[in-house]
């Protein structure tokens, strides 16, 4: 478990999560990035930049 840095709701980081994965917060819908796995730690995902994409 970890907490959303925006709304502080507890979030279960899936067992198969990897560093860099994006999760949607179940409380406030914020985009969160898994920055560490053990112990799980979340931060707000960076905003989309203009040159991002495929």
């Amino acid at each position, binding site marked *: 478990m970890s907490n959303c840095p925006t709304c502080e709701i507890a979030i279960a980081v899936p067992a198969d999560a990897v*560093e860099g994965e994006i999760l949607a917060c179940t409380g406030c819908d914020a985009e969160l990035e898994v920055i560490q796995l053990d112990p799980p730690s979340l931060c707000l995902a960076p905003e989309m930049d*203009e*040159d991002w994409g*495929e």
Partner: protein
Amino acid sequence: MRIAFLASRVRAEEKLLLEAYAARGVDVLRVDPRRIDLRVDSLRGGAEWDDVAVVHDRSISFATSAHLVEALESRGMNCVNTSRVIRTCGDKMRTSLALARAAVPQPHTRVAFSPEQALEILEHELGYPAVIKPTVGSWGRMVARLNDRDAAEAVLEDRAVLGNWTHRTIYLQQLVDKPGRDIRAFVIGEQVIAAIHRHSEHWVTNTARGATTSNCSLSLDLVEIASAAAKAVGGGILAVDLVEDPQQGLLVLEVNHGMEFRNSIEATGVDIAAEMADFVLAQAGMLVGGGVR
């Protein structure tokens, strides 16, 4: 031997790719570009790269991709895609020129280097409706439909005032009267492995903007033009976007070097991640006769 996998944001695609490598027993060095300390004054250093046989780039930023891959290539590393392909696909004007050099059909496309000239081209050559696209960018962002001179003046002024210098190259295109859908063809090496239709009520048929997908059968025409487009930009792992023009037939809109494909696996029945992983491994001589070496 191992592969290096460049990714910051791990989307559904990156998870599928990492799973594909794991299923093949491949040792993967995950590299987050945000944490790389890159020497550019010398090609020495970076012992962790010594046993990397091939680099699979999945960076989400065009600038990072192009710069980082070129730095790794300078060290003699084999990268998929190559920096040349990234730079060609990441800039729509350069893509158009590459397609033109290979005589691959595309919509009528013009470039201007001033808003005044852009308006001239719209008024006297392309007509309305027309489309303006930023040369760099994805997911249909800032791709705008110009239905008349008023719209053109507004958008051109916006970008001149609010945009940065990369908006000063103004890329203008005829609006193709497509049948509510476009086509995305997945090309790996010389091979078109699958294609989808993207359907939308909106004139922008991008899944990032809510388009739905269905399988598209691989006609001889489609295979020919999609593989020619991929070859024109330098080849690799690519997604070719096409439209069906009632008069001109299949036209190439763009070629993507860092394609997303999560919605295309079910639609096509093709394991795109597996095909990609096998191609990358083959580049490093790590895939022989269907197995990992």
